[in-house]
């Protein structure tokens, strides 16, 4: 099969040089669930050269309503390994490292080091604090996203930025989400995170650097807040 035109439809949205640049980039996606599944899919299809996909969890029946990589056949299977298999079906140009571990203070810096960008697809505040500290230590920018019910948020967090400190301050307990996780919110926020990732990798500017985009899918409000 001739796949030489694989990236034809990237063109004009991205320049040939930007497409070539993406092929050289290494991105670490932390979390392979609701957000992560879509982010991995989008970054693989657009042609990011290497993806490290991190998740210590296995698929659960409650993931079926929204997680792209979850199907009835893979309940009980590793999310990270499933992500790697999925990318192999989409784009054999992309190399993938699957890490079937949860992020900890001990392993975080080792996992994120050597990447051009980290994308946050985690699902709790304490893991995000660990990620922020590890990426600050490694000097790596994070594209942050989080969801709750009809709402979501996205930010681009350079090392040393206060964004995570504001959103998830030390000492604040993880709060259970009473708002639910409907199927339509993860792909919206994941797509925005992926767009920010591509912009960052191509050296483009973003209004979300150090700022927070808050999305309300009930009222369709998209507002950028200066929080740092």
């Amino acid at each position, binding site marked *: 099969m001739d796949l030489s035109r694989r990236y034809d439809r990237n063109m004009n949205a991205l320049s040939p040089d930007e497409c070539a640049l993406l092929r050289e980039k290494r991105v670490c996606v932390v*979390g392979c*669930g*609701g*957000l*992560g599944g879509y982010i991995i899919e989008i970054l693989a299809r657009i042609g990011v050269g290497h993806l490290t996909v991190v998740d210590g969890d296995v698929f659960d029946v409650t993931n079926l309503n929204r997680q792209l990589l979850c199907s009835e056949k893979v309940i009980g299977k590793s999310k990270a390994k499933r992500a790697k298999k999925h990318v192999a079906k989409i784009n054999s140009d992309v190399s993938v490292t699957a890490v079937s571990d949860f992020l900890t203070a001990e392993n975080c810096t080792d996992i994120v080091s050597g990447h051009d960008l980290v994308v*946050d*697809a*985690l*699902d*709790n*505040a304490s893991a*995000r604090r660990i990620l922020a500290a590890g990426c600050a230590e490694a000097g790596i920018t994070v594209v942050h*996203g*989080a*969801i*709750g*019910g009809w*709402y*979501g*948020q996205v930010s681009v967090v350079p090392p040393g930025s206060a964004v995570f400190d*504001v*959103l*998830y301050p030390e000492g*604040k*307990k*993880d*709060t259970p*989400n*009473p*708002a639910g*996780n409907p199927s339509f919110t993860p792909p919206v926020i994941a797509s925005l995170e992926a767009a920010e990732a591509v912009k960052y990798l191509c050296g483009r500017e973003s209004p979300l650097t150090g700022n*927070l985009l*808050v999305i*309300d899918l*009930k*009222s369709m*409000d998209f*507002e950028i*807040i*200066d*929080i740092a």
Partner: protein
Amino acid sequence: MDILVKFYAVDIPVSLKSTKFDLPEGSVVEDALDECLKLPEITIDEDYFKASIVLKNGGRTHLKDALSDGDVLSILRTMEGG
């Protein structure tokens, strides 16, 4: 004194997403949150609501920080899901 409260990611009618409150002099941020919770349209659990991120005039603030006439509070419900 007038305090403008902007709600983000809080289940509330669109018409109330930006609401002005008249608070007595000497009020603190938590007093404003208590006023918000008196709105019948806000059905969120009190503890969960008070765990929201609160910005005063765009900067970080705390529940016991004093308010001044014209302050703008932005209340962002904490989102952790992924």
